[in-house]
């Protein structure tokens, strides 16, 4: 590592200049501002909602951007980044909400297709739990989404922050985005979600698994890391579907790790025997002490002879002997 020494005189000049410009007033002013305006951003950062501003009378404004609305007026996110919901978790949430109420409002936006209604951006577990409890209202926090692309973007961001999305959720939602024409190539998805293209490719490869294996993944998506899912997709060539379903079930049960999958796949690889290189035996042809050619023969039966006979009579004699050896007629030189 290069050791560097700071030039003290240059630093002193910098700080003297700084001290000239600054004074007590800057701290005092900053404290005054913070006291008068504790938040830097005005509330207009979120949609401004007031009663009578087109909102139904059944809507209760709980905070500036938090509302309690009829659950029937809130439709699910058509571009939800999360596709798989565990019924057991819904029941668990439903119990929690029955005991403590809905503690966190679900992110939502105004429904541009149905004025007076809303689109849920995230928090579908909360909505399912509330419906299971027979609740009539849901608390939502409004975010400024204006189109389907925003709906996906915000939903993905919410899942990403909570690290709650699974690779299969990603694969299904990206497939949906591609089908809707909202993104085209895998590179575009990579740019959208900020993940390497190889990750996008491996994630989408999960959808190439057979329906039987996919159904195991859908039952317990959180048990399958991207690497485990990708290993399964690589195993499709060497394993039967029944075998793969059993293996996937073992992964879901926690009996197989990703490393186990790699070992299984490696072990199943049919090793093609390496072709043995044939080695010939060589016999030098020496005439009058000079090297004139070679005869080579291999175990496979191949024999090759190369010889230089400058005397035409000698050459004709050799050819004639060979013709006779192989029963070749004199008028068939080809």
């Amino acid at each position, binding site marked *: 590592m290069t050791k*560097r020494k700071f030039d003290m005189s240059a630093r002193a000049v910098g700080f003297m200049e700084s001290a000239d410009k600054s004074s007590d007033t800057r701290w005092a002013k900053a404290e005054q501002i913070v006291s008068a*305006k504790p938040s*830097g951003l005005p509330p207009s950062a979120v949609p401004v909602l007031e009663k009578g501003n087109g909102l139904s009378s059944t809507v209760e404004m709980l905070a500036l951007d938090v509302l309690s609305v009829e659950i029937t007026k809130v439709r699910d996110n058509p571009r939800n980044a999360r596709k798989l919901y565990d019924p057991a978790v819904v029941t668990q949430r439903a119990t929690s909400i029955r005991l403590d109420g809905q503690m966190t409002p679900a992110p939502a936006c105004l429904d541009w297709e149905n004025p007076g209604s809303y689109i849920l951006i995230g928090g579908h577990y909360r909505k399912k739990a509330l419906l299971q409890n027979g609740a009539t209202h849901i608390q939502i926090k409004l975010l400024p989404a204006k189109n389907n692309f925003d709906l996906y973007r915000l939903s993905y961001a919410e899942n990403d922050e909570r690290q709650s999305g699974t690779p299969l959720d990603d694969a299904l939602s990206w497939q949906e985005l591609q089908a809707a024409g909202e993104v085209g190539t895998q590179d575009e998805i990579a740019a959208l979600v900020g993940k390497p293209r190889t990750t996008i490719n491996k994630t989408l490869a999960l959808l190439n698994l057979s329906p039987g294996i996919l159904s195991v993944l859908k039952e317990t998506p959180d048990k399958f890391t991207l690497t485990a899912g990708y290993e399964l997709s690589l195993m499709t060539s060497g394993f039967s579907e029944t075998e793969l379903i059993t293996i996937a079930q073992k992964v879901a049960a926690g009996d197989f790790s990703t490393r186990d999958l790699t070992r299984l796949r490696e072990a199943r690889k049919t090793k093609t025997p390496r072709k043995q290189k044939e080695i010939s035996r060589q016999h030098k042809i020496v005439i009058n002490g000079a090297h004139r050619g070679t005869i080579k023969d291999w175990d496979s039966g191949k024999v090759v002879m190369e010889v230089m006979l400058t005397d035409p009579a000698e050459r004709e004699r050799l050819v004639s002997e060979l013709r006779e050896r192989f029963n070749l007629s004199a008028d068939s030189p080809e």
Partner: protein
Amino acid sequence: MSETAIAAKVICVFNEKGGSGKTTTSCQLAGTLGLRGFRVLLADLDPQETASQWLTENGGEGLKAQVWSGHRYGERVIQQIKEFSNKYDVIIADCAPSVENKSTWGMLLVSDLALIPTRLSPLDMAALPNAKRLARRAREEMGLNYPVRVVANATRMHMNDDKALMNVLKKDKEFPVMPCVMGDRKAYSRSMVMGSSAHAVSNGEDAVKEIESLADETLKLLGLSRTIKVRK
């Protein structure tokens, strides 16, 4: 110099987007300036206390900067920073991932430079307008025009997408992007494990080049001389 004058240069590193590179930028910059001989305070204002934990868990000796965990102070962070301002040359605030956080607002009011780290992806860049609005507001309230720069983080500049998104950032003249970027490098995460800057990581030369450039650019923006003698 008045006893309570702002002696230290204050750098506010903020962005509401989690994972944008605030802590990486703050810690690497703090470590680099520390190695250059500056007395550096790294103010960890993120409730997750990533920077503090990073150093505490690794002995706290690898980084040439003092770390202070101050996220509980809210808007009162100004008074605390004021106390520190005469003891340090540079104070770097690693802010919470929220533009509504009171300490972020407070730090922006007393800053000499604000850095907004971002990854080069549309999702991450969607958070930039809010960050810029907050910085603009702080400058207006204080009647100051201190520099605010975007720092591209975890970049993969060999990829066309990153080049295209970098060009988008370059178009903003009010809040320009730093010409130097921090690449998607293992040296940064490895140095976290070691509780140091990338300087301590073997094979971390490329990362070191990047953060040294970032340090050069930062000092230039702060009006401090970059004159450095290299000891052979």
